[in-house]
């Protein structure tokens, strides 16, 4: 019997797990996929929003501004890259100027610090690569960038180091209420918990209906992205948004904490919660608008494209509610969910306390986690000491991103352990560079097979039937 079961190992579930692991609680995170951070968490704009977007008085506004303030410290404790690069919302005409003034007022009222409205000259000075057609901007110096799956892996790893458990490939298909709490069923396996937190992203409505709650629904909204080579990462230094319109927020151009350049997202309402396909129209849209915002984007330097599905709730705001004592929904966490996630975790902890869960501090709690980038960020002497101690740090496996065998083995051995090629990629950046794993894929496959004690052809890209190899050659037999 767990004290708390968290359904969904995305950034929201992860941050809640970490928060709760500071208390004397038996926690279990249940994830339907083979790894953590597999839903909206792994494919979004990777922005810590300042908080001027959400409507005054909404939960989105409140938790965004709080979360954005907390994020730097959280990132520091978890050893996660965080860059306070500032955001610019650019305008092209008087109508945009008007909207930006409204956003400025809204931001002020939401409690966003240091907002400024800029004229043409100021904004071009601040961000020289902007299109000459840009005439005004809203500048939010508190805007920042972070890697959402790095944050989630770290938060869940930290929660696990502090005692939380993680069950992957555990898709909750039924929930039974018992005298002591709930039984969560996945196939033949059952997990019992006194409290359940529903952070199942796109499937939070399905989980809710398992306890007879049909008060909200969640639908997917597609967002496609293009990721450019690290050569392009310095083209802009700020996150460049367009002025929002009836058509949505438009295509942003942003550096990432890893030094790439990110373009996107498109915004298309969908029905199928599993349809993460990119489209030719989407690519064309991204390219057209990105080129309107910023001059000189070298589109030939695209290294990958991907699609994420935002979990859009039916109320327009975050849905963080308790339909009954012992059950909490954390649903409809679309943008600014990543930014809000640290604040959401505190909000949920408070709700649990109100429901009578005793939150006694865990005396062994350690908020800090060793950075997955400890080796690459070390000094030359420190690196040489580490190589001497563990020669695997001297062997470069991923040439494009300079990732060593030691770092890959760390990712396979550290909570939450990487179990497939994509898991290694998200934890180490190996295979994430310009060759996209062409050179290092076969070797990482070997490391995974050896470490996990499985056959070479048993290694997958991301679990399930995503086999890398489907058999052996004639000679291999």
């Amino acid at each position: 019997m767990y004290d708390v079961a968290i359904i969904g190992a995305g950034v929201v579930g992860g941050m809640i797990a970490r928060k709760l692991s500071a208390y004397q609680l038996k926690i279990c995170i249940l994830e339907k996929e083979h790894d953590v951070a597999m839903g909206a968490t792994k494919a979004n704009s990777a922005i810590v929003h300042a908080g001027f977007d959400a409507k005054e008085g909404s939960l989105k506004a409140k938790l965004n501004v709080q979360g954005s303030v907390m994020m730097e410290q959280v990132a520091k404790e978890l050893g996660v890259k965080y860059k306070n690069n500032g955001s610019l919302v650019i305008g092209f005409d008087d109508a945009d100027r008007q909207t930006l003034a409204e956003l400025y007022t809204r931001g002020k009222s939401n409690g966003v610090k240091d907002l400024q409205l800029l004229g043409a000259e100021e904004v071009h000075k601040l961000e020289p690569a902007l299109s000459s057609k840009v005439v005004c901007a809203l500048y939010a110096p508190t805007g920042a960038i972070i890697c959402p799956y790095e944050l989630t892996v770290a938060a869940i790893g930290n929660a696990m180091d502090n005692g939380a458990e993680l069950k992957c490939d555990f898709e909750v298909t039924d929930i039974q209420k018992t005298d002591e709490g709930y039984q969560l069923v996945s196939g033949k396996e059952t997990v019992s918990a006194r409290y359940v937190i529903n952070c199942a992203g796109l499937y939070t409505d399905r989980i809710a209906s398992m306890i007879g709650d049909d008060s909200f629904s969640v639908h997917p909204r597609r967002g496609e992205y293009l990721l450019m080579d690290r050569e392009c990462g310095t083209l802009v230094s700020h996150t460049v948004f367009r002025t929002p319109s009836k058509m949505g927020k438009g295509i942003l151009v942003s550096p990432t904490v890893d030094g790439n350049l990110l373009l996107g997202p498109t915004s298309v309402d969908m029905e199928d919660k599993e349809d993460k396909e990119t489209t030719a129209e989407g690519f064309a849209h991204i390219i057209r608008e990105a080129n309107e915002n910023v001059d000189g984007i070298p589109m030939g330097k695209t290294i990958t494209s991907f699609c994420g599905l935002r979990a859009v709730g039916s109320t327009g705001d975050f849905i963080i509610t308790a339909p009954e004592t012992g059950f909490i929904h954390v649903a409809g966490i679309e943008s600014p969910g990543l930014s809000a996630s640290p604040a959401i975790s505190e909000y949920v902890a408070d709700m649990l306390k109100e429901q009578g869960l005793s939150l006694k501090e865990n005396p062994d709690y350690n908020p800090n986690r060793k950075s997955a980038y400890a080796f690459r960020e070390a000094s030359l002497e420190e690196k040489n000491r580490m190589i001497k101690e563990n020669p695997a740090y001297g062997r470069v496996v991923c040439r494009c991103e300079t990732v060593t065998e030691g770092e890959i083995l760390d990712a396979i051995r550290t909570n939450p352990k990487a179990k497939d090629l994509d898991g290694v990629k998200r934890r180490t950046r190996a295979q994430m560079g310009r060759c996209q794993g062409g050179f290092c894929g076969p070797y990482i496959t070997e490391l995974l097979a050896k470490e996990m004690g499985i056959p070479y052809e048993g290694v997958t890209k991301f679990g399930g039937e995503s086999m890398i190899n489907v058999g052996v050659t004639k000679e291999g037999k």
Partner: protein
Amino acid sequence: MTDLVIIGGGPAGMSAAVAAYEAGIRDILILERDSALGGILQQCIHNGFGLHRFGEELTGPEYAWKYEKKVRELEIPFKLDTMVLDITPDKVITATNSEDGIFQIQAKAIILAMGCRERAKGALNIAGSRPAGIYSAGTAQKYVNMKGYMPGKNVVILGSGDIGLIMARRMTLEGAKVHAVCELMPYSGGLARNIEQCLNDFDIPLKLSHTVVKIHGKERVSGVTIAQVDAGRKPIAGTEEFIPCDTLLLSVGLIPENELSKSAEVELSPITSGAVVDQDRQTSVPGIFACGNVLHVHDLVDFVSQEAEIAGASAAAYIRGEQGEAVSIPLETDGIIRYTVPQILTAKKDVTVYFRVADVYKNVKIKVLDGGREVLTKKRQKVAPGEMESITLKQEQLEGVKRLRLELEVL
């Protein structure tokens, strides 16, 4: 201080090392990131290598061994599993391996021989899902030939580069079904002999002016949609065809790997993606030379070896301080001829100029012009982007020449 450091122990690096040794240099070090010498030839177990150079058909490993044997006999030092992290313009090399940790070497001369990599799927923006089962042809070749595993059983290949053609045959021989090779262009980028021996001999259809417009499948590829493209290379609506398959191999171009050249501030050509070099294969940074696929992508390893020998011998001359009378004759092209290597002549001596054309042309005249004057002309029955061409200029033809221009005239 080391006289000559060679970055890369593939065919280019090894040939360059042997040539520099034979030109009298003894203080040589080859740095190789893989655990063996030979570079990509290690996984090219098919034959056809060495016809020009040795007059016999060798496999990739056999060809590589000819040079590795020499390197070993001459006791030219090399470090394996050693990755070069940085090169400065004043030729300080930073590298890492398990034994030495991170270390630095000051070189008198450097030869860049890092080879190339395959263009990845990301650069193509193919719509659809991102399941397992999409590999570059070279990666698939590594799984099959080096690891003994089959990355798929039902295959579609996008791009008709040589590795793609070779893998079409290789996968077929291993019992896989290759349904089609799609090529965006109206002609193949591969060698004519590979189309004959790897596709036609196995009845594998080559679909010219076709591309993959969508990838299907959630966990593993379940199929691809292909379509015909128009003259502007845009898919033609209504020509879509779904092919069920579990694997998509990409052979859509090779890109010289010049990240280290950039750190050394070597000037790169936007057309070749390799260094701009003179007849000695010396780059814009004195004492840094380049050869092989890091300089420009070759069709045949025989020409890589030849080019590397020029670089090796020239690096030796540089180390000894032998520099001839300095001239500067730029080599321009008309765009129909896409590029030349070398791009500039800095000494008056016999020189073979290698070049590639932008499209397929029949019955052409290649003209080397000095202003309006024809220095040299040559006729060719057929030229194609997939086959590298060359033209040799004699020292005396360079007398009084200020700049040269290569033009192609269709007769």
